């Protein structure tokens, strides 16, 4: 691996990886894998599937690094690839968006007992009631708000990165996220 400064930018790592530096690519994987998995898990509603799609995203990125235009941010590029993969997967497999609510024989709504909590995107939260409330709150957001919340909090993108990715003015991103947060705070008031 070439000599590099202590904290190279994503774009520098991408350029080195494009030239065949696997270690540089490994650093990008470390930087992005958790955020990609969290983001994809919210899109497809299944943590295991999200991990598979995260792998697929990185394989595609590795193959496409030669076409990466470094006048853009690496973060927005990789999340665009991940988003497309997640949405394509939903279309192809017609995976239902996860609803943990099911009706029992008497028509009462009960929480589905996930056989494998490891597949639940919020399964790591110990407070199950809070996890369920959070899942419902995110699910009930308007799609345009939900998308921005996922990009901000699960993908960890800045407001500017979101504006670039969504091709939206920065002010619009700020306003929409402000409203989305207000909706979430209201829905989760008893837990905040």
């Amino acid at each position, binding site marked *: 691996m070439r000599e590099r400064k202590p904290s190279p930018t994503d774009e520098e790592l991408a350029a080195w990886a494009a*030239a065949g530096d696997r270690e540089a690519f*490994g650093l990008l994987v470390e930087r992005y894998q958790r955020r990609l998995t969290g983001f994809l898990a919210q899109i497809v509603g299944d943590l295991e599937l999200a991990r598979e799609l995260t*792998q697929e995203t990185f394989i595609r990125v590795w193959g496409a*690094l*030669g076409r990466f235009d470094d006048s853009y941010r690496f973060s927005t590029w990789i999340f665009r690839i991940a988003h497309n993969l997640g949405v394509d997967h939903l279309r192809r497999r017609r995976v239902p968006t996860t609803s943990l609510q099911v009706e029992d024989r008497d028509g009462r709504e009960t929480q589905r007992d996930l056989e494998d909590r490891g597949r639940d995107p*919020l399964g790591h939260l110990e407070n199950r009631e809070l996890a369920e409330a959070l899942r419902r709150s995110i699910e009930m957001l308007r799609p345009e708000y939900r998308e921005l919340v996922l990009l901000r*909090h699960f993908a960890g993108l800045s407001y500017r990165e979101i504006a670039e990715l969504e091709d939206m003015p920065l002010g619009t991103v*700020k306003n929409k996220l402000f409203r989305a947060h207000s909706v*979430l705070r209201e829905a*989760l008031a008893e837990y905040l």
Partner: protein
Amino acid sequence: MEPSCEIVRQALDESGGDPMMLGEASRRHLAACRRCAREAAAARRLRELLDAAVPPADPVLRERIMARLPARSRVRLLSLVPAAVGGLLLAGGAAAVGGVPGAGLAAMAPGISVGAGLAAAGGIGGLVNAGAVALQAIHTVVPRVVPLVAGGAAGLGAALIALGARRLGRSRA
């Protein structure tokens, strides 16, 4: 000028309730305004909850991904495919329009075969006249179309070569 509650709350929302991210005037406002202070606390708790909602990293995922990566040389070879196709198209196009010495014969081939066809057809008689007329039409059209198609192919070939060279250049950068 003191910022309004609305401006301070918008800034708090962006900062996830972190007062240290605010400007000095907004921090002063926050210290004096109870409602904004409550907003700051709620924004902070929401951010903490959402932060905690991101699943922990899978410790083996990195190794799995790295093990699945194809060799970079293969990726590079794939990037050369358009250039190779472009080369073939360019050479074929140039040969067809006679740009390569001796290869102009290829362009003449349709004319020769059509001429032979016409001679043979004339010998058979009137019934074949219709076929001869058709062949004549082809004879007229083909020589005009061939240079056009060949020129197009050569142009496309050159563009593909340029694309391949650009990709290769980037992957080496």
